[in-house]
């Protein structure tokens, strides 16, 4: 059976208390994880993937469920986003494609943005991982090599498979982080950091408190395209988000997800295609191919990387369909 490893669950009721608790645990040398909805963390714990002795829940911290066109708290449930609560339509589109309705009623925005990276050598039970002699990301102290790119144990190429981050990127959102060393705000593109283990810039004890969108995000329209085998449950095998201000091609932004260890925007490709001026269908063609060429998926999800890469072109084209209308 998949037995949950034992841990101590903490329930701070304010941001300050949470930071204080984190500081105490750090001082005591105790490892811990944050948990919000738990739909990502707890299954991994059941598989004994990097479990920690302490888990701090954000569920009882007040003020984290705000939801509007310009602000969303970390404890906002994905199901709440998908209902008409004023969230940006592009975000709603992405949120409604996450996993299944059952999972969306528990899963949170914060959790989705901080989703652990995934890899079929890593998201497995303990016996299974023992049979491959572990891997770099969960090496159980063995210094094991990466199983995707062998003969090295410095880079983890596990794939980030969140759906919502790319939509926030193209809307120009910022993330608000807080921890024992204070608060900071940064654009969401800077939040993610290469390497499948590091994943993002969160420092020890820090957590993602909320996301804000600029006022002009409301002017933006756009689309999120997700590639998956089944219309329910499946993580994206590739995802492309695009947004623009209607009638203004120069406002175009594109971001991709589920192709590399981090989601990211593609400003160079957009800039390149805008240089000679926007030419409708032709520009879409050039841009789709350019975005496709700029991503480098590896073989660690359900579908082969060559195919996923080919599909980036199609997804980009479909995401930009609205610009041509």
């Amino acid at each position: 059976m998949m037995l949950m490893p034992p841990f101590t669950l903490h329930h701070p009721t304010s941001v300050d208390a949470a930071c204080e608790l984190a500081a105490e645990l750090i001082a005591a040398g105790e490892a811990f994880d944050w948990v919000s909805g738990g739909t990502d963390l707890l299954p991994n714990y059941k598989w004994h993937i990097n479990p920690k002795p302490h888990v701090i829940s954000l569920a009882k911290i007040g003020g984290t469920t705000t939801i509007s066109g310009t602000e969303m708290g970390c404890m906002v449930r994905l199901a709440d986003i998908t209902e008409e609560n004023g969230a940006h339509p592009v975000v709603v589109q992405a949120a409604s494609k996450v996993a299944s309705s059952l999972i969306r009623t528990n899963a949170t925005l914060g959790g989705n943005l901080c989703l652990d990276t995934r890899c079929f050598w890593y998201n497995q039970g303990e016996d299974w991982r023992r049979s491959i002699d572990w891997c770099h990301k969960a090496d159980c102290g063995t210094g094991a090599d990466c199983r995707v790119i062998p003969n090295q144990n410095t880079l983890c190429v596990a794939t980030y498979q969140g759906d919502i981050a790319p939509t926030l990127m193209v809307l120009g959102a910022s993330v608000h982080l807080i921890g024992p060393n204070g608060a900071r705000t940064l654009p969401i593109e800077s939040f993610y950091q290469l390497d499948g283990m590091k994943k993002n810039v969160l420092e020890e004890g820090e957590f993602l408190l909320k996301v804000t969108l600029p006022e002009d995000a409301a002017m933006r329209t756009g689309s999120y395209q997700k590639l998956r085998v089944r219309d329910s449950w499946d993580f994206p095998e590739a995802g492309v988000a695009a947004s623009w201000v209607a009638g203004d091609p120069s406002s175009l932004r594109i971001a991709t997800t589920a192709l590399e260890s981090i989601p990211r925007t593609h400003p160079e490709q957009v800039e390149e295609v805008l240089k000679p001026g926007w030419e409708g269908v032709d520009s879409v063609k050039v841009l789709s191919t350019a975005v496709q060429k700029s991503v480098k998926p590896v073989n660690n999800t359900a579908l082969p990387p060559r195919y996923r890469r080919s599909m980036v072109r199609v997804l980009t084209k479909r995401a930009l369909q609205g610009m041509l209308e």
Partner: protein
Amino acid sequence: MSGGYRQQPGGAGKTIRKDGKRVAGKQAFPPPGSGGSKPEMAPRDLDFIPEMVGGKEAQPAGAHIHDRARTGTTVGKPTALVDSNAKVTGQAWYGDDVRLSNEVIGKILRSPHHYAKIKSIDTSKVEALPGVLAVATGADSPHQFGVLPVTKDEHAMAVEKVRHVGDLVACVAAVDEATAMAALNLFEVEYEVLEPVFDPKKGLEDTDEPIHWRGKYHLARTNVQKRVFQEFGDRSLVEKPLASSHGKWNMAGVHHGFTEPHAVVAHWDPNGRLQLYTPQQVPHYTHRALATVLDVPMHQINVIRTFVGGGFGGKSDPFPHEMCAAILSRKSGRPVRITFDREEVYWINRGRHPSHIEVKMTADEEARISGFDIDALIDGGGFASFGHVTSYYNGVLATAPYELGSFHYTGARVWTNKPASGAMRGHGAVNTRCAVEVGLDEMSEQLKVDPIDLRLANLLPPHSRTISGFRITSNGMREALEKVREGSDWDNKFRQMPLGKGIGIGCGFFISGSGLPIHWDPNRFPHATVHIQVDMDGGVTVHTGAADIGQGSTTAVAQVVAEVLALPLEMIHVRSHESDTSPVDLGSYSSRVTFMNANAAIRAALEIREQLLKAAWDVLGYHPNNLVLNDRRIYYKHDPAIGISYLKALHKAQEDKGALIASGAYRSPPMGGVHKGAAAGLAPAYSFSAYVAEVDVDVETGLVKCTNVWAAHDCGKALNPLAVKGQIIGSCHMGLGQVLSEKMVYGRTGHLQNPNLLEYKIPSVHEMPHVEPIIIESCDPEGPFGAKEAGEGPLLPILPAVVNAVYDAIGIRLRDLPLTPDVVFKGIEKGMKAAGVVDPLDLESPRVEHGDLQPILVKRAAEHKKRDRSRQRSEDTSPYVNGVLFGFDPNLPLEDQVEGWRMATEPDPEQLAALGLAGKAWLKKEQRHMGGDE
């Protein structure tokens, strides 16, 4: 007649005193009435009584031997399964719901290596861990077992070698799960790692260390577990084909994906008998294997089948973990429970074999199917399981429903270092059926004819014999094809829809029960036995060993008993869980239960009926021939007012002897050929089906969505149409998984990469098309009330129907299953290259223009339709054997009238060089013929 007769008048007359009080000890039994909430007798339901015996139920296929036993009670009526209340209220007790006092938890130590010798196991640290109560290793049980007596190659735990990652090495019982899991880390096992084999093609080659060793019967030093060669018919027919199809298929292994993981509880009771609780499809096989492995007589073991949370063939082997639980329980003196997680379920597997299948088909100038050449190399994984049978089924179950000029099959099953393959819904027939039906589609294109007409003009009729000697009785194939053609508006859609939209046809043929009871001679013991007991309360207790795995076998048995005795379903109580009380039944596999078990139940019920009628005769004075059984009352045919209640008749029958007891059994009739392997695929009846599927293909991404299915299945007679429809829809879902998204992915290191239900992609409700189930009733002469199977056959046609529909949509033949979007997209890229287009939206979908053969086929099909109708109704009783279509005389042995007619089970030396992939196994010799020392 009208209703209005009260059941069991109750305590009238002498049992009441003048002052109105009851006379002590003289109470009428039982008070009041036997009808529960319905004291009035229901009128006879003439709509469900056959025409032949005076009812209104139409019988297009003619009369049936059980017509006289019909009472209009339940047969043919949509009936909720009798155990559904327990399930929907959460009270059904599945494997892991069993909780015995003092139970402890068992855990299994599994191999981290694909293939290794076990040099030593040190358990001392495990034993020293507080809370550990028992430890066992392979040394505790040297006896081998296996589901088939001819291939017993499993141990409770590895004895000498581990054969795949996840193979059982040792086990431990501890006071709780956490302790047991901690204990697993304390085993010290020394392995000598061996070179593993993953590719079944490599399994055909000699190796230093074959995965199993069969002594003098071992094939050279290969990993071939079983090879088959079969050749029938006139091989000269294939030489000048008008059309031919040659396809090489690569089909991934798939798993049953049942909801309930394996779970077992073992307990040695105070008398030293083993009580084993397990969700099993084949409790009797488990019973036998336990006796062997534990070295105790079978009568000292009681196998208790819990509710089964889905089986589909995945719970139809005796399993090593069942042995482990029994061994740990014996050692610890405590009940031991072992429950699998999903990963362990994949490691024990027994799913459909990963297969390389090559099919060559030819059609002659009259569009008759002159040749079927099938070569199937199947990947058995680490153990034999049902593989011996699968090796045959991959070929022989393709020999119908079409009339063939010749048939040639080579099959081989090899061991590899992967979890064992086994039986899965549609056992052995699914993959080749898909290849064959797609081949027909391809040939129809070359012949410029409609694929449905090609089929209709080449069908074997009812009451005929296939090329390899199977006896076909009822046959609703033609009607099934006609119904789906009409329902789907085929003639206005096929080859006429725009790019990306497609429609396809596929047929199916499957056994309704395996003709051979694996463990014994069919002439000595019956296939199934059912006991019925009726005591004074009037309730009918039916004892059967039939294992209800959710398919509704308990309901089917209850229904046929209720039908014969004309009793409400709630008066029938089926007891089928314990081997102590159930007569031996082989279990739920090969779609045998309704056919065999219900037949046995009808016999037992008829015996009870005879006793009741005789009692009524004694009371009423009318001969049983003139008595009618209807809803808890027996009455005179010509004057319904003259009659007695069921209870009164029962009590009369019980005088002097107490409870009525009856036993019924089913035996299959003698049938089939005498060649080697003739029994494989032999069944007392066969089911037929035809599906049309409609798909949408996104040509830019390769994503396929099946939108509509018209699914016609010939189940003989739908005892319970609700259950039959459920089986058809469920089969569609399961088959769609195999054809579109499910596969067991073995990565570059040979590890199973997706042993979980997120990455093993069973279709969700979003992927489910609208399914229009169409029941065809061909009324099988030997089936219970005419019934045949409906549990497995309905899965077969959905695969080829979808593959053919994808071709209709995009004009590209795909032969790698499943058709995941990357596979389809790769095909589309090839198609674009061939067509010289850069945008997939510029591809052209195939079109058809009928040629000269089309009207000839339509005419032939019309003639055959008349032929089939009179044969189905037994108006035409002339013999029909495969070959009549080719002008042979059915009254003479074929080998006497056709020069070069072959019937061979071994290749001729000159054939060897031309054999296909699996056929290469025939290049090797068995050890006993090699002149070696073994």
